[in-house]
């Protein structure tokens, strides 16, 4: 559950891939109203005590109106939906996890960050991280380090590295215990925010079991 924050953050960063402003500061907000982002991902999870990383491939949809749909296809069909109501995960069509937002205060805080990033408000992130940036408009990196007074219980993360160009391309999350996730994005496109009926149905599961 703790990892939720980190990955969600990665996802939202990808959506809100920062634009490189003329004055050298990172700005964000590439989605215009009515737009959504689709793409593919490869997640490599390196765990302590495991020789090989656990690799997951799949696609995602980030819809400002409906939420985030994270659909792993290989090696297992695991679908995760997250929005303001909470989080639901299905494996082979069976619900394996449900986290209602009402019971997860930090989830709602995350959505504040989520919103902030979508709107290009990086101050929301700087509440929890020191943000260091380098590179240029076409090839930039952000290094996020949790603030000392941050919430270690909720976020046992030692650092997050994000890099990309027009879109986020790579996110690396290193956890305090040495585990890490590397997510590589591809085939990202801005589309009309019109989820398919199947996707709408999946999102609807978050609200009602």
């Amino acid at each position: 559950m703790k990892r939720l924050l980190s990955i969600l953050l990665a996802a939202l960063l990808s959506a809100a891939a920062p634009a490189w402003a003329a004055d050298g500061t990172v700005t964000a907000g590439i989605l215009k109203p009515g737009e959504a982002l689709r793409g593919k991902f490869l997640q490599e999870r390196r765990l302590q005590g495991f020789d090989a990383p656990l690799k997951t491939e799949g696609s995602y949809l980030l819809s400002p109106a409906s939420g985030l749909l994270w659909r792993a296809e290989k090696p297992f069909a695991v679908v995760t939906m997250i929005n303001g109501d909470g989080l639901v995960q299905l494996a082979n069509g069976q619900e394996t996890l449900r986290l209602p937002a009402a019971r997860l205060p930090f989830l709602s805080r995350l959505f504040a960050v989520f919103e902030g990033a979508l709107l290009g408000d990086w101050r929301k992130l700087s509440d929890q991280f020191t943000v260091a940036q380098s590179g240029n408009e076409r090839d930039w990196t952000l290094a996020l380090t949790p603030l000392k007074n941050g919430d270690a219980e909720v976020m046992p993360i030692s650092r997050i590295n994000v890099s990309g160009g027009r879109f986020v391309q790579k996110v690396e999350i290193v956890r305090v215990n040495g585990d890490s996730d590397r997510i590589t994005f591809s085939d990202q496109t801005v589309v009309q925010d019109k989820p398919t009926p199947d996707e709408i149905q999946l999102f609807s599961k978050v609200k009602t079991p």
Partner: protein
Amino acid sequence: MRRTAALIWLALVCLSAGYVGYQAVNGIALRTDLTALLPRDERDPILQKVNDAVSSSLSRRAVFLVGHAERAKARQGAASVSQALAASGAFSIERDALNAERLKRVGALYWPHRGALLSNADRAALQADQGEAVATRALSQAYGFVGLSDSRLLVEDPFLLFPAFMSHLPFPMSRLSVDDGMLSAHAQGMTWILVTGLVGGDPYDLAVQEAAVAAYDTAVAAAQAQAPGLAVKHLGAVFFAFQAARASLDEARILAFTAAAGTILLVVCVFRRLSVLWLNLLAVGTGLLVGLAASLAIFGEIHVASLLFGTSLIGIAVDYALQYSVGFFDGDAPDPARRLSHVLSGISLGLLCTLIGYIALMLAPFPGLRQIAVFSAIGLGAAFASVVLWFPRLDRTPMLHHGRPVLGAMAALWRVWETPVGRRAVAAILVALAIAGTAGLTRLHANDDVRSMQSLSKPLLREQEEVRDIIGATVSPQFILVRAGSDDAALRTEEELAVRLAPLVTDGALSGFQTPAAFVPSPERQAENRRLIRDRLEAPFLARQRAALGLAPAPPGVERDDTVLTLDDALGSGAVPFLSQLIIAPGVHVVMLEGLTDADALRATLASLPGVRLVDPTGDFSALLSKYRHQALWQLALTAALVAPVLLWRYGWRRGVLVLVPSVAAVVLTPALLALIGQAMTFFHAMALVLVLAIGVDYAVFCAESSHARRPLTMLAILLAAMTTTLSFGLLAFSRAHAVHVFGLTVLIGITLAFLLAPLAAAGRARKP
């Protein structure tokens, strides 16, 4: 001789004054809990022990919710409130319900036994041979978006059975989520932080209540000064008890003042002499003082209810003084000695009959009622002693002549009973009363539900609802008691019980429950879990699972730790402090219930399970009240049966019966008339009737003992007595506490009837001048 007796009495009264003064300096132990008024349930000592243990832990619990629109301020406020509450010493605050440290200890307790532990859902899945679903869930967590909290776990526990078991442990308040070490909830656009604690003493002790409320008020004020907009809600028996005690103390003060002021006013108006007032106050004062001293000496403490009823003692104690005082108007009794001798037989017999009533009350197995009975009986005896021993010595009052109009009115009252027209009118009224009474008797019904007798603070009830809305259902006062030959047998019973309770949770009759077996499965269940894991999960899927996770195949022949987790392990580790509250004694366990809405459905479910019973302290209390209502009515009959021989011995058959009629009629008619206005009979009605009988006999005896010439004087004394009794007892009818209200109302009606019918007692004598 009389002089010596008076001096000895003076010494005794001074001793009492000294004793009460000494006690008052040290702080008189005031009790406010209803349960202290109850008999101890001696038939079932284990049940009593469990009841005590559970209700004392429940009644000491206090819940605080600290809320603010900003999360940080809510957290800061909660920290400040808990710190202030803990620093006050009035509460011990339970720190960090489920922080990382606690979770680590819980994990350390269970980890070595993980091969025998399954969550309910996983167990059900394996029993249904759906091991693959369990395996898939683990993979989805390993590969999925959310991920794992501890990856090393996966190497040891590739099906992730252990985290599933841990996260389904039914800790109380598990509906709340842990947000950085604080139990939090979101409601009404605010973040609420839960702070729980135990009040640092008996929540029914007034001093503990005052300290708790003061600590709470101070803590809230300080936290709100730091963060404006901070909201704090509180819940706990100690706060309810404080409000109830304060209301009843306030009430007792008002009632005592009104009774005293009314009595004084009455005496001054009738006698126009302060000296008469002093004599009356002396009798009442010594009665109260000696009664209080004796109660404290015998019981070591006094209950607020006894204090409340004690104020009413004034009304009866003043009767004897009034009987003496009306002698001031008596031309035949110009000196104190004759004033006394004229009334001595009447008040002695009255005292005797009243004491018989109180002795019957003393036989009631209610500790608090014994206090009242001792207080009243000794107080009355003391007032009587003061009248008999001191009045003649202190009385300097000459004969008073201004009483003629009043006595004329009293004589007119008597004539009603002596003229044929008056007799017919009285007979008509009696017939009407008999008809109304008969109608009422057919409507007589009882209601012993203690909830209908409580008057809980409305603002606190509202707050309780608000707290429940935010944190979900709270612990129910009802609980399930499991009794078996051993702890293991009790755990097995609880496992069976859990199966039966599950449908009730689905139906909403219950929102949750905590059995010890959920924290420590029975040895049989542990063995069965091991088999299920081995046969339904590891044998078919382990190799595949390890491969899917990229782990090397499990090394063959590795010995698993298969020691059984015992209740002692769990209790000894202290990792689950809550568990110790559920284990009362070997084989005697408690199952806590949350959000119970349908006790009948639960009872029906439990009926066929041996060794298991639902304990409903409120319901049991109501049942006890019912039992003792019956007993009180028997005591009423007993009192009448004890008084009757005294009266028959004194007056012979015909007159004896006539003397008995007014009080018996009052006792029968009063509940009948109350039934007509729809009031259900309760234990408190019954106890009031015991008093009505005693006082009613008093009035009848005064009338019967009175010579024809003294009748107007006797009538005046009875009228004054009835009025003062009404002032003190009848005023209780205005109490907000239902039990006190019905007591007062019953006495009010009963005394009125007893007074109106009292002259009947003299009827036998009327024909023989």
